[in-house]
């Protein structure tokens, strides 16, 4: 989409030309359109592909949905966002038309009350929507679930995540220093999107775990911070590895945070091999992990009561609670074939006070 195809007349015929309702903004020939877009505040700080009518029409070929169909009310301004507006921002993010259905489903997911994009923007914690794509569409559009899956280098991963953020910025009006009050922010607020390595896992997929059919195309959005590496290069057994992963997970966000914030564990292929070799499936893994994630409340209170001037409660002396609420740890398989690392993505306030992980089926 970075090359204007010059097919605009043909496309105008097909779409009737007037099907695009967005305001036209002319760029004077003496002006650089990229600079003008920066000046207007339409970018996330990186250059964008200028959204010409021709490019937007081509983008709209990626979906069967009508340009004027309302996709969602986008926070923070709760503005009606049409398929056309999503397409414009997808062009700017650098998407191919084949990515558009994923972007549309992800926009729907982040704009639900459950996911609470407004709160995610407004919080001082540097969290943002983390997108995980499941189903055949991931391979078909060239998403990366392998080497450097959470990093740079793959157009689909990066531009899909970026398009969602641009919709929130441009349509919803959510901008740093405005509604967005993040203390530090995070690279994850620019684009954090990857697909699960489904072929390489003996387990059910994240989408299956969340009630979808394996052949369905699904995007799951999770409110998370940047990924943190969990190193374990010594465990030879599933029992040892699960214990080591739990040590890392217990520290997610803070040792003191118990049940109040979710997490996402991204297991690498070499770590997954330990569980495969031991015949553990997803259920067995979660069952074995659970006791290692029990937190002794007395221990936390002992550490903290002095500073906050609170009396340690005798009643809690023997109380243990799980690090994550039921369903509060999402587990995904992704990463390169070499590397005895996994990764944890810490979450944010969960439940009605915060954000619920949300999944949406991707439709054409």
């Amino acid at each position, binding site marked *: 989409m970075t090359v204007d195809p010059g097919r605009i007349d043909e496309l105008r015929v097909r779409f009737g030309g007037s099907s695009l309702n967005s*305001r036209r903004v002319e760029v004077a020939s003496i002006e650089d359109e990229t600079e003008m877009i920066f000046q207007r505040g339409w970018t996330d700080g990186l250059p964008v592909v200028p959204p010409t009518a021709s490019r937007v029409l081509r983008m709209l070929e990626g979906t069967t949905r009508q340009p004027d169909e309302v996709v969602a009310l986008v926070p923070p301004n709760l503005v009606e966002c049409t398929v056309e507006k999503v397409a414009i921002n997808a062009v700017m993010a650098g998407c191919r038309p084949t990515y558009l259905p994923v972007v549309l489903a992800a926009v729907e997911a982040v704009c639900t009350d459950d996911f609470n994009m407004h709160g995610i923007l407004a919080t001082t914690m540097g969290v943002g929507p983390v997108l995980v794509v499941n189903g055949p569409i991931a391979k078909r559009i060239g998403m990366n679930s392998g080497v450097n899956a959470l990093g740079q280098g793959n157009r689909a991963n990066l531009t899909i995540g970026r398009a969602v953020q641009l919709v929130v910025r441009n349509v919803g009006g959510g901008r740093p220093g405005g509604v967005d009050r993040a203390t530090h922010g995070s690279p994850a607020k620019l684009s954090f999107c990857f697909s699960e390595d489904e072929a390489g896992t003996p387990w059910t997929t994240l989408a299956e775990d969340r009630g979808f059919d394996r052949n369905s195309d699904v995007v799951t959005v999770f409110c998370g911070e940047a990924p943190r590496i969990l190193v374990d290069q010594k465990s030879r057994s599933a029992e040892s590895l699960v214990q080591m992963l739990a040590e890392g997970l217990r520290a997610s966000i803070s040792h003191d945070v118990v049940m109040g914030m979710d997490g996402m564990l991204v297991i690498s292929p070499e770590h997954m091999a330990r569980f495969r070799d031991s015949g553990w499936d997803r259920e067995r893994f979660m069952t074995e992990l659970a006791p290692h994630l029990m937190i002794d409340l007395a221990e936390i209170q002992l550490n903290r009561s002095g500073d906050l001037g609170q009396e340690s409660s005798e009643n809690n002396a023997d109380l243990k609670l799980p690090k994550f609420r039921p369903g509060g740890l999402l587990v995904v398989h992704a990463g390169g074939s070499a590397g005895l690392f996994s990764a944890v993505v810490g979450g944010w306030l969960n439940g009605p006070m915060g954000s619920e992980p949300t999944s949406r089926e991707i439709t054409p």
Partner: protein
Amino acid sequence: MDESKTGITLLDPTSESTPTKRDLSPRSASIGGLTIGLLDINKPRGDVFLDRLEEHLGQRGATVLRFAKPTFTKPAPADLRHQIATQCDAVIEALAD
């Protein structure tokens, strides 16, 4: 005259809730007593035009300060714009052709 040609047209990616036009800065009733900056964009003959304007403005009770851009091909440097904005009540930029 490159300036007379228009460039490409983009589609607005925003909700379009912001007005297309911003209003101009509030104006005074008259120029008497104002400090008016004359910004020369550095095209030939512009200085003669500005010299004459300076005479006219002086006769109407305005104080005139003169500024010049290094080149007419680019916007004025930020430092210069800041200097003008802090020293002047109004600005005339000339002469683009």
